[in-house]
C-alpha cells in the first residue's frame, strides 16, 4: 500500500512537471547579452564612364586595400569593344578607378571564364578561354609581374590539357594550380607545363593555394580536399555544403582556410580539425538562392575581414562588429509551402536592422521526407493548434479562409498602414469588413492581346459571344488550346463562380461554345508547322512547357485574333514578347476583368509569442527596400507604390527574348516601351479581384469539363460530375 502511494505520488509529480514544461511560452527565450559578431555590408562599385554595366572578373586583397577588376562592353553587334577597369577601395573607404589597357590587349573580344588573381608576391595572373579559327576551345594564361605595365602569355603544354580553366591559384614558388570545367585539378610549372595531375574536384567549388598546399572542394561536395605538394598525400576536411551550390575558398596569410557557401562563412585553421562557422548564411545574402558565390578574398587583421562577390557583381563585406549581439536572443519563424525570394531578402535586411533577432525560414517543400502539400499543411496545423506555429505565414496554397474563420491570423491593417505606401486596390481586395488578415507581397496579372474588342475578356460569356461572332481568324487558336489547356485556362481566369458552386451549367456551356468555335481537339499544337524538325513527343513536351509559344505563333500568322497569358515583371519573357507582339503585329493589351494573382500572401500568427517582431518583419517585407529590389526570381510586380513607380519609370537594355515563328516572322521582345508600361501600370492599379488558386480542385474538375468538351458526356452528365466534386469539396 505504501509503495502504491509512492508510485502514485511520483506519477502525479511527473505529470505536473510535464505540464509545466509544456506550458512554458515559446516567446520567453533566454536572453544572452554577449556582443560581437560578423555583420554583412554591401559594397557598391562606381560604374565607369560610358559603361551601362560591368562584370566582376577578379577580386584580391592588397596592401592598398581591396582591388576589383571589372569588364564592360560597348558597341553594336559585330563591333563590340571590351574595356577593363581596376577599382581599389582603400581602408578609409575611398575608391579609385583606373583603366587596365593591358587586359584589353590580352582579351580584346572578352572571353569565357575570365579571372584575374594576384599571387602573394604581387604577380597578376589573368586567365580566360576563347575559340580558335577552327572553333576549338583554348585557354590563355597571361602573367604580369609589374602590376599591369607589361605582360606575357604562358605557352606551356599544360594549358592545352585543360578543357576550360574555371579557377586558378598561384603557389609561392611560381607553380600554378588550375581547375577546369570537368573538375580536374592540375598543377602547372612556372612555364605552364603540366607538372602533376592532382585529381578531381567539384567544378563550382573554387580552388585556393598556400605555400605547398592546394585546396579544392571534393567531387562529393561534402569535404574540402587539401593536397600537400611536398608529399603525395591529401586530407579531407569534412563540411556539408548544400547540393548544387557554388562555393569559393581562400587561404589567409596564416594558412587559415576560409570558405563561403550558401550556408555561411567558415574558417579552418591549419592545425584544426573542424570548421568554424562565423557567419550564418540564413541571415545574410549568402543564403539567398539567387546568390551565386563567384569570388572570395580575405584581408588580415585582428579580426579578418572577408569579401564575397556574387555572379551579378553584388559585393559584400563581412567584418566583425563588436556592438552587434553575439547570439540572437529571439527567433522569428517564417513558414511557406514554397520558396519565396522576397522573404530571403527581407531576412537579410531584417537581420541588419535587428541583430538580436534570428529569422528562421522554413520552406515546407524543401524539407526532407518528400511529403505532399496536405502533409505539410497538417504539420503546420498541428503546430498552430499546439500554440507553437510560425510567427509569419506565407499563405500561398494554405486554407486562408479557414485560418481567418478560426482566428489564426492577426489583423495587420495597422501594420500595412504604417508600412511604406502600398497599392490601395490590392489592400481593399483583401479587406473583410475593414479588417485585413493577409496581404500579397507581389502580384501577377492575366492579360490579353487582341485585335478585336477588349471587352470580350471581361467574362466567360462575353468571350463565348465574341468567339461565336468572330468571322475570319478565331478569337483564340486551337493550336494553343486543346480541350485540356482550354479548360485549364478558363478555370484559371473565369472559374471563380464555378469554384463557389454557382452556375455550373453556364460555365460548361460557355466553355463548350468557345471550344466549338475555335475548333479545339484533344491534341495540343495541331496545325503548328514548325520549320525545325522535332518529334511529336518533343513538340508536345515543348508546348506544355511553353504554352505561350503556340499562341504567339497563331497570333503572328493571323490564325488567332487574341492571346491570353500572365505577366509577372517587365523583364518577364511573356511580358516582353507579348508587348512586342502587340506593337509589331498590332493589337491592344487588356486585363481580364480586373483579376490578379497574389504572390506571397503574407499573414501574421495571432498567437505568436513575438507578435510585434512578426509585424515588424511584415513591414520589412512591404518596405521599399525589399519591394524595390525584387529580382527576376520573384516573378511578380511589387505592391509597394513607390517600388512599382520606380520599376515602371526605368529603362533597361539588359534583357531581351525572342521567338522564331517561321522564316518570315520573328518576335524580338525587349524591356516594354513607355506606352506599354503605362498601360500595364494602369491595369495593375485597376486590378481588384484576386484569382482563386486551387490546383487540387482544378485537377478534380478538369476531367469532367474535358469530357463535356470532347462530347463523351452530355451537359447534364458533366454538370452532375462537376457538382458531385464541388458538393463534396464545398460542403466539407
Amino acid at each position: 500500500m505504501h509503495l502504491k502511494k509512492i508510485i502514485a505520488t511520483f506519477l502525479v509529480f511527473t505529470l505536473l512537471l510535464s505540464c509545466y514544461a509544456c506550458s512554458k511560452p515559446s516567446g520567453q527565450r533566454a536572453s544572452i547579452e554577449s556582443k560581437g559578431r560578423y555583420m554583412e555590408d554591401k559594397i557598391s562599385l562606381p560604374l565607369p564612364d560610358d559603361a551601362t554595366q560591368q562584370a566582376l572578373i577578379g577580386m584580391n586583397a592588397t596592401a592598398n586595400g581591396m582591388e576589383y577588376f571589372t569588364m564592360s562592353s560597348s558597341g553594336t553587334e559585330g563591333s563590340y569593344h571590351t574595356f577593363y577597369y581596376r577599382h581599389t577601395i582603400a581602408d578609409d573607404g575611398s575608391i579609385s578607378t583606373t583603366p587596365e589597357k593591358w587586359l584589353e590587349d590580352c582579351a580584346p573580344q572578352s572571353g569565357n571564364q575570365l579571372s584575374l588573381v594576384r599571387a602573394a608576391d604581387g604577380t597578376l595572373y589573368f586567365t580566360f578561354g576563347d575559340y580558335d579559327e577552327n572553333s576549338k576551345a583554348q585557354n590563355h594564361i597571361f602573367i604580369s609581374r609589374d602590376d599591369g605595365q607589361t605582360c606575357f602569355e604562358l605557352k606551356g603544354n599544360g594549358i592545352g590539357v585543360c578543357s576550360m580553366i574555371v579557377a586558378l591559384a598561384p603557389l609561392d614558388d611560381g607553380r600554378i594550380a588550375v581547375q577546369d570545367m570537368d573538375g580536374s585539378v592540375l598543377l602547372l610549372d612556372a612555364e605552364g607545363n603540366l607538372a602533376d595531375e592532382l585529381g578531381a574536384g567539384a567544378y563550382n567549388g573554387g580552388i585556393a593555394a598556400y605555400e605547398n598546399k592546394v585546396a579544392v572542394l571534393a567531387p562529393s561536395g561534402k569535404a574540402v580536399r587539401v593536397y600537400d605538394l611536398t608529399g603525395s598525400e591529401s586530407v579531407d576536411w569534412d563540411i556539408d555544403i548544400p547540393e548544387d551550390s557554388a562555393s569559393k575558398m581562400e587561404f589567409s596569410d596564416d594558412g587559415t582556410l576560409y570558405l563561403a557557401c550558401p550556408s555561411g562563412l567558415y574558417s579552418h585553421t591549419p592545425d584544426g580539425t573542424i570548421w568554424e562557422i562565423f557567419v550564418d548564411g540564413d541571415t545574410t545574402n549568402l543564403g539567398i538562392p539567387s546568390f551565386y558565390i563567384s569570388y572570395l578574398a580575405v584581408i588580415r587583421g585582428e579580426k579578418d575581414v572577408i569579401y564575397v562577390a556574387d555572379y551579378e557583381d553584388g559585393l559584400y563585406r563581412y567584418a566583425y562588429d563588436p556592438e552587434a549581439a553575439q547570439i540572437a536572443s529571439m527567433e522569428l519563424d517564417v513558414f511557406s509551402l514554397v520558396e519565396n525570394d522576397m522573404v530571403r531578402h527581407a531576412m537579410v535586411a531584417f537581420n541588419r536592422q535587428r541583430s538580436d533577432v534570428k529569422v528562421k525560414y522554413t520552406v515546407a517543400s524543401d524539407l526532407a521526407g518528400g511529403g505532399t502539400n496536405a502533409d505539410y499543411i497538417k504539420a503546420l496545423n498541428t503546430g498552430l493548434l499546439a500554440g507553437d506555429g510560425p510567427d509569419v505565414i506565407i499563405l500561398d496554397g494554405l486554407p486562408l479562409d479557414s485560418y481567418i474563420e478560426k482566428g489564426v491570423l492577426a489583423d495587420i491593417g495597422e501594420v500595412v498602414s504604417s508600412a511604406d505606401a502600398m497599392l490601395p486596390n490590392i489592400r481593399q481586395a483583401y479587406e473583410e469588413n475593414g479588417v485585413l488578415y493577409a496581404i500579397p507581397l507581389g502580384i501577377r496579372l492575366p492579360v490579353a492581346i487582341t485585335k478585336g474588342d477588349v471587352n470580350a475578356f471581361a467574362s466567360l460569356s462575353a468571350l463565348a459571344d465574341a468567339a461565336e461572332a468572330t468571322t475570319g481568324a478565331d478569337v483564340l487558336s486551337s493550336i494553343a488550346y486543346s480541350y485540356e489547356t482550354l479548360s485549364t485556362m478558363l478555370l484559371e481566369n473565369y472559374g471563380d463562380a464555378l469554384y463557389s458552386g454557382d452556375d455550373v451549367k453556364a460555365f460548361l456551356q460557355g466553355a463548350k461554345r468557345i471550344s466549338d468555335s475555335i475548333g479545339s481537339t484533344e491534341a495540343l499544337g495541331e496545325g503548328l508547322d514548325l520549320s525545325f524538325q522535332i518529334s511529336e513527343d518533343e513538340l508536345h513536351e515543348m508546348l506544355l512547357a511553353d504554352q505561350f509559344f503556340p499562341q504567339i505563333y497563331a497570333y503572328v500568322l493571323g490564325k488567332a485574333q487574341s492571346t491570353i497569358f500572365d505577366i509577372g515583371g517587365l523583364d518577364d519573357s511573356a511580358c516582353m514578347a507579348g508587348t512586342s507582339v502587340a506593337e509589331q503585329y498590332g493589337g491592344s493589351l487588356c486585363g481580364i476583368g480586373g483579376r490578379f494573382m497574389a504572390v506571397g500572401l503574407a499573414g501574421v500568427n495571432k498567437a505568436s509569442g513575438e507578435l510585434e517582431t512578426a509585424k515588424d518583419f511584415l513591414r520589412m517585407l512591404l518596405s521599399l527596400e525589399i519591394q524595390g529590389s525584387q529580382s527576376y526570381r520573384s516573378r511578380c510586380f511589387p505592391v509597394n507604390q513607390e517600388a512599382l513607380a520606380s520599376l515602371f519609370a526605368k529603362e533597361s537594355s539588359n534583357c531581351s527574348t525572342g521567338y522564331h515563328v517561321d522564316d518570315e516572322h520573328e518576335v524580338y521582345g525587349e524591356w516594354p516601351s513607355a506606352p506599354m508600361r503605362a498601360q500595364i501600370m494602369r491595369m495593375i492599379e485597376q486590378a481588384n479581384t484576386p484569382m482563386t488558386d486551387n490546383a487540387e480542385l482544378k485537377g478534380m474538375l478538369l476531367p469532367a469539363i474535358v469530357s463535356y468538351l470532347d462530347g463523351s458526356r452530355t451537359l447534364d452528365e458533366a454538370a452532375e460530375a462537376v457538382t458531385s466534386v464541388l458538393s463534396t469539396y464545398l460542403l466539407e
Partner: protein
Amino acid sequence: MAVIPTLDVVRRSLFSAMGNKFVGLENFASVLTNESFFLAVKNTGRFLLLCIPLLLTLSLLTASLLMRQRWCQSLLKTTYLLPMVIPVTSVVLIIQAVFSKNGLLSALCTLFGKTPVDWLNSEYAFFVLVLCYLWKNFGYNVVLWMAGLSAIPNELYEAARIDGANEWQCFLHITLPQLKPTVFMTTVLALINSFKVFREAYLVAGRYPHNSIYMLQHILSNWFTNLDMQKISAAAVLLMAAICLAVFFIARLSARKGESL
C-alpha cells in the same frame, strides 16, 4: 495513457477550433448537418456491412475446409499471410496497374470490344476497394479461424458422429458455439482492419476520390487540413460512441448466440 487524449478530444468537441471559446453542442450540430459527413458515413457503413460479413464467412468456410486438409497446411497458412506483409504502396501500384483507365482490366475490355472503364473513378471504385480489403485480410482471418478451430476438442465431433450428426449439424452445433470467443475477437479485428483500407483509397485517389469511396477518414483528414479541429473532435466523439456501441452489440450477440446454441 489513452484517457487524457480521449478527454481532450471530448473537450475540444465542445470548444471552437482553436480551443478558446465554449460552443456547447454547436460542433455536433455542424457535423450532423454536414452532407459530406453523411456521404462518408454512408460509404463507410456500406463498406463495413458488406465487407465484414463477407470476410468472416468466406474466411471461416475456407478455414473449416483447410482444417481437413492436413497436407501443405502450414505452407498455405504462410501463403495466406503474404498480403499482410506487402507494402501498401506496392498494393496501390498493383491496383492502379489493373484498374486504371489504361490498366489491365480496361485492356481486356477493349480486347472483347467493350469500352475501357476508369474503374477507380466510377461507382466500381467501391467494389475495387472491397476486393482490396478482402484480398488483404482474408488470409489473416483464415489463420485466426484456424487457431480457434484447432482449439475445439476432436472428441466432441467423434461423439456427435456416433450420435448420427452430419457435417452441417456438427458445424452448427459444435463448431460455431465453440468458436464463440474467436467470433468476437475476429469480428473486432476485422472492424479495426476495415478502417485501414483508407490508406489504399487515399493513395489510389487522393483527398477527394470518387464519391463512392469517400470514407470517414477522408473527411477527417480533409478537416484537419482545413484546421477544422472542432469538427474532427465532434466526429471522433460520435464515432467513438458508435464503435463502442457496435463492440458492445457484437459482444452481447456472440454471448447470446453462444448461450442459445
